[in-house]
């Protein structure tokens, strides 16, 4: 048995395979649900309603998709240029903490129209800086960035932990390690009252569109892809490799930093060390599911959020251990990866 690359993909295939993948994930999860002693079909129904069955669940799904889209974009942009940024988690936290710091210490009383853009810029910049360090190490010392970015995640989270334990600690939080809050004018407006859905979703989708345009149409997009696919040939063709990678790193780190900033400014209002349930890592999977296509990242982010929120809600309404939600997300991701593979390859004897 071997696999052969498909040069053309039929629409049927592209539509059918993800459906098969979801069905497979549901089937496996069904076994676990049955073992946990709950009626399986009802559980499936609850996953659906848990994700979209009410105004609450729909807005929650969209809220959760927001950071996933942003970190997914961060990974997609970097991976396309073969810059293996596994550090979105750290960049997320650094972006978040800088926003909290700048808003609470410096610009808190600025009006929203000025403050929000400033904060977003600050958060993006923080993420950039954290990715430029490993990039510099790679360009200067040939250090593999997979490991440095991974390690910097822990440094970043410890750094945040230290700040919210010391200088940035919120005195109103009775000693709990949490940062001073973003000022009210620094918070992103809600898209819907009585929900957590905030402007961040619109920003994320807009950025995905912009990025899609940049990657598919601009000189930079083509050059960064060339740099990723074959650096030596790219140099021969006059692609400024270092500059392109720096720019890619700025985009990727910036997006991850932005994800953190938007999460703070849109949802939580201040930073704790459990701000992210692994958004940085999930972003990588989201990007891969989307085949590194920015528009696909929006869909993959929504998909991942749907699976999680739906299964999480299901676990609560059916009294199944809530860990089933993560199991289900993991299963969907794995089966989806396989499905994406089979849209690109066919089996040959």
């Amino acid at each position, binding site marked *: 048995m*071997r696999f052969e690359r498909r040069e053309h993909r039929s629409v049927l295939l592209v539509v059918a395979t993800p459906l098969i993948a979801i069905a497979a994930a549901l089937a496996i999860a069904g076994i676990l649900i049955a073992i946990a002693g709950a009626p399986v079909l009802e559980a499936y129904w609850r996953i659906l309603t848990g994700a979209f069955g009410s105004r609450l669940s729909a807005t929650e799904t969209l809220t959760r998709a927001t950071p996933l889209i942003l970190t997914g974009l961060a990974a997609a942009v970097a991976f396309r240029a073969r810059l293996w940024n596994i550090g979105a988690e750290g960049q997320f936290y650094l972006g978040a903490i800088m926003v909290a710091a700048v808003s609470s210490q410096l610009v808190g009383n600025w009006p929203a129209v000025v403050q929000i853009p400033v904060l977003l810029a600050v958060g993006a910049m923080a993420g950039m800086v954290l990715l430029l360090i490993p990039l510099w*190490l790679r360009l200067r*010392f040939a250090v593999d960035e997979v*490991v440095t970015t991974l390690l910097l995640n822990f440094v970043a989270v410890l750094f945040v932990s230290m700040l919210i334990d010391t200088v940035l600690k919120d005195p109103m939080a009775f000693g709990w390690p949490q940062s001073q809050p973003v000022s009210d004018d620094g918070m992103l407006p809600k898209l819907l009252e009585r929900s957590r859905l905030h402007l961040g979703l619109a920003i994320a989708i807009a950025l995905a569109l912009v990025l899609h345009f940049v990657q598919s149409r601009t000189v930079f997009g083509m050059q960064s892809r060339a740099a990723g696919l074959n650096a030596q040939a790219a140099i021969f063709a006059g692609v400024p490799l270092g500059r392109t990678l720096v720019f890619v790193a700025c985009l990727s780190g910036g997006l991850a930093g932005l994800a953190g900033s938007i999460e703070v400014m849109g949802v939580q209002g201040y930073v704790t060390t459990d701000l992210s349930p692994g958004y940085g890592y999930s972003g990588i999977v989201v990007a891969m599911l989307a085949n590194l296509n920015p528009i696909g990242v929006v869909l993959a982010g929504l998909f991942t959020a749907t699976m999680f929120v739906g299964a999480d809600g299901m676990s609560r309404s059916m009294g199944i251990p809530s860990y089933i939600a993560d199991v289900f997300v993991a299963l969907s991701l794995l089966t989806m*990866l396989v499905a994406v*593979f089979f849209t690109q390859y066919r089996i040959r004897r």
Partner: protein
Amino acid sequence: MSEIFDILASAGLWAAVLRIATPLILGTLGALLCERAGVLNLGIEGIMTFGAMIGWLSVYNGADLWTGFLIAALSGAVFGLLHSVLTVTLGLSQHVSGLGVTLFASSFAYFVFRILVPVAGTPPTIEPFQPIAIPGLSDLPFVGPALFVQTPPTYLAILLALGLAYVIFRTPLGLAIRMTGENPHAAEAQGINPMVVRYGAVIAGSALMGMAGAFLTLSAFNSFFPTMVQGRGWICIALVVFATWRPGRALMGALLFAFFDAFQLRLQTVLGGAVPYQLFLMIPYVLSIAALALMARRARVPQALMQPYRRGER
């Protein structure tokens, strides 16, 4: 200053270093074996979690400690098989598959644990491995209590490190693994099936990761808690690079890392909260990055690491 010297001169510190290092040694060896064959295994964090859970659960249900250890290793092997199917047979991106395996293995571990042990309160305990004093050696002054009063898995981990070094550098199998990690096409041209080698290495490496997890619940502690692996798997991934893919150096790296942790815990008792503890915890990570910067140009990365091998594709 003298307090710091006291800490360094205490046998307890060095005994703790070995203890803390054990899961790191096992996990690092596992990750190293996978990478030597060209497969990055980011599933380690989840595999360790599952190993910790299943090892403990087996013993709790009456298996003896070594059986529990073995079952943890087997469970690791099963996840290794999953990772192999995804990355070796299908050639999917190794980062993503690994992260997927981690997410799946850890959440599945918690789920199984909750279904089978639905208790509240602190979870039940088992009787863990007890330290064994090696006759003769443990009576040596200072060195004895520091190094030769450990639980059996610690001795096993050290032996495994030496054994793996031997296998990789001194046996035909090791050469086949190295060749597969350097150039699978060349391995195939010499009649070695790189797919089989990769499967074997990933499965065996993942088994070691499962053992690393089991150490936490069968020796370092006596019950399982969700989230108790606490990023130790990621540290192993870093240690592999720090060790430049050599088992002997992996052993040293794990010991160094453990030293900082043990030292940090002891320093706190002297300095109190004067220095934020996070700074201590950062040291090993920062140091690893610095070490990488110093030796990256000399380090010989397995050339085919993270590159899928598909027979006959151009």
